């Protein structure tokens, strides 16, 4: 699992970009590669949402007479499955669609939980200051000090593998980056004129943060979201690949890869195709996120 941080631009420079997504971000100036990535992501999202409707077969429908069939471009038979079948004769395409749905849903939920948690704690730390700030920052440092995969494995070992627990772990995976980022942005934003003005108008902190500060610092947070999302996907797929994440009968992309690993010699498509989906998704997100960030702060390399 890759847990390398990206260089984050200083908060003050980011605050000059106020709009949520600057209007000049769109159409012109969109490189073809980035457009392709966004298109791919849209396609994945679509497939994930409508997976069960689009699947030609039930994802659990076994067909032991047609085990380990190759994808259609390698199989001469008329009743070839589009992407082949696995060890139990289950249609790979159908399984792939459902697995994508599960993996994406987990990654999305996990990212959102982490974002909400991190942003809330970041605001709390910036607002209260003092020991609350110290405490939150200590938690952030602590989380950043340990590779999360290890923590997740330990928790799964101690507490068993429950789906909700797994989801909670996905949620906790990246909160510290949001917290640290939000805290910095909020601390800078609080000193801005409008924040002081709204406070002097008599606004309660909740109103100040939710209505004024947060919308104005959303940009970098959204970029962080696009950078964290691939990390969450990788966490889930890594754990599932190791057999310690999503358990059957549920399926996920990582799990499919893990299962397919045993058949590399005979049916390589069982592992390669799900792996390719994971890779292309994380790659697209990284490229799109990078580009988004460069648009928000062109001075950053």
């Amino acid at each position, binding site marked *: *699992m*890759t*847990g*390398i*941080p990206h*260089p984050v631009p200083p908060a003050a420079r980011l605050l000059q970009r106020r709009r949520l997504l600057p209007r000049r971000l769109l159409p012109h100036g969109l490189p073809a590669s980035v457009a392709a990535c966004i298109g791919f992501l849209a396609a994945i999202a679509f497939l994930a949402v409508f997976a069960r409707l689009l699947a030609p077969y039930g994802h659990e429908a076994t067909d032991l007479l047609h085990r380990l069939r190759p994808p259609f471009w390698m199989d001469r038979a008329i009743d070839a499955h589009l992407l082949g079948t696995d060890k139990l004769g289950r249609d790979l395409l159908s399984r792939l669609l459902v697995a994508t749905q599960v993996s994406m849903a987990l990654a999305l939920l996990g990212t959102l939980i982490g974002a909400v948690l991190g942003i809330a704690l970041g605001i709390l730390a910036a607002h209260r200051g003092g020991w609350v700030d110290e405490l939150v920052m*200590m938690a952030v*440092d*602590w989380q*950043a*000090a*340990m*590779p*999360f*995969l*290890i*923590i997740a*494995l*330990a*928790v*799964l*070992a*101690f*507490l068993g593998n429950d789906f909700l627990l797994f989801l909670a772990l996905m949620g906790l995976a990246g909160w510290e980056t949001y917290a640290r980022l939000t805290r910095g942005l909020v601390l800078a934003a609080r000193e801005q004129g409008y924040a002081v003005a709204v406070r002097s108008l008599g606004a309660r902190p909740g109103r100040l943060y939710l209505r004024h500060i947060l919308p104005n610092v959303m940009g970098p947070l959204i970029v962080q979201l696009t950078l964290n999302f*691939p990390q969450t996907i*990788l966490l889930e*797929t*890594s754990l599932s*690949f*190791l*057999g*310690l994440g999503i358990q059957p009968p549920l399926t996920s992309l*990582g799990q499919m*890869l893990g299962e397919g*690993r045993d058949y*590399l*010699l005979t049916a*390589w498509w069982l*592992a*390669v195709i799900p*792996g*390719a989906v*994971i*890779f292309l998704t*994380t*790659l697209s*997100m*990284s*490229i799109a996120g*990078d580009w988004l960030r460069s648009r928000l702060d062109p001075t950053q*390399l």
Partner: protein
Amino acid sequence: MNLRYAAIKILRAVLTLWLVVTFVFVVLRVTGDPTEQLLPDDIDPLIRDYYRTAWGLDRPLWEQYLKYFQSAFHGDFGISFRNRLPAAEVIWQRIPKTLELGLATFAAALAMGIPLGVFAALNRDRWLDRLTMSFAVFGFSMPNFFLGILLILLFALHLRILPSSGYGTAAHMVMPVITLATAFAGSIARFTRSAMLEVLARDYLRTAEAAGAGLGRRVWRHALPNAAIPIVTIVGFSLGGMIGGAVVTENVFAWPGVGRLLTSAVADRDLSVVQGIVVLVAVTMVAANLAVDLAYGWLDPRVRVGARERTR
């Protein structure tokens, strides 16, 4: 280097370590009786009783806490289910293998990443730059288990020039190292590139150029030493990811290291081994971060003298 700075960093390191061990302790106590969690079911009752007293399970909680710390300090984490050996011993046996992998990966990542980054910086914005940076993005988006599997497919199963898994010869190391190093090479390349670009733009380099110093001399003697600081930082940061990556990579290549031990221990719910590894990783990470912090404190004043002309 500021003594106060060093003291604070050391204090934080100790505090973090303490927190991790406490965390493990709490989770253990919450989930059940340690003698059942940390010892095999059919162990000799005498041994079980011994541990019962050693861990102070009939004593108040705070005493157990202290005893736990004591045990952890001595490396006593219980007995592994699998092979009836003390967990610490089992872990200890595996460490050299993981170290081997880690150091080789480190070297490979730096050897790949730094030149790539320097190269990209020197050819800024030309297609070479874009190519190397694309490679970097590819590198850290690629899930390491997928890369590993692709490598096995290609080199072991089709071309048959490398063994698909296991430990033994140098050939066994090639694919695991490439797999693990790729992601970090990418990151290192990016950081090196931005650090180099910043440094290359500085006046004293242009002065050197005007004085007639060749490109090689400028890069080696002037630019690189100053770019060292961010590189040190990114190396420090990478360690955590590398440990996580090692867990998966060792699994893919059946490399008999600590990472593989961890996954099998988790699968078996061999908690004594799991907690031992968690503490080991914590110690490693804390020590590494501390080293980076201290190195930073030492390197920094040297750079700041040069930077003053630029930043003000």
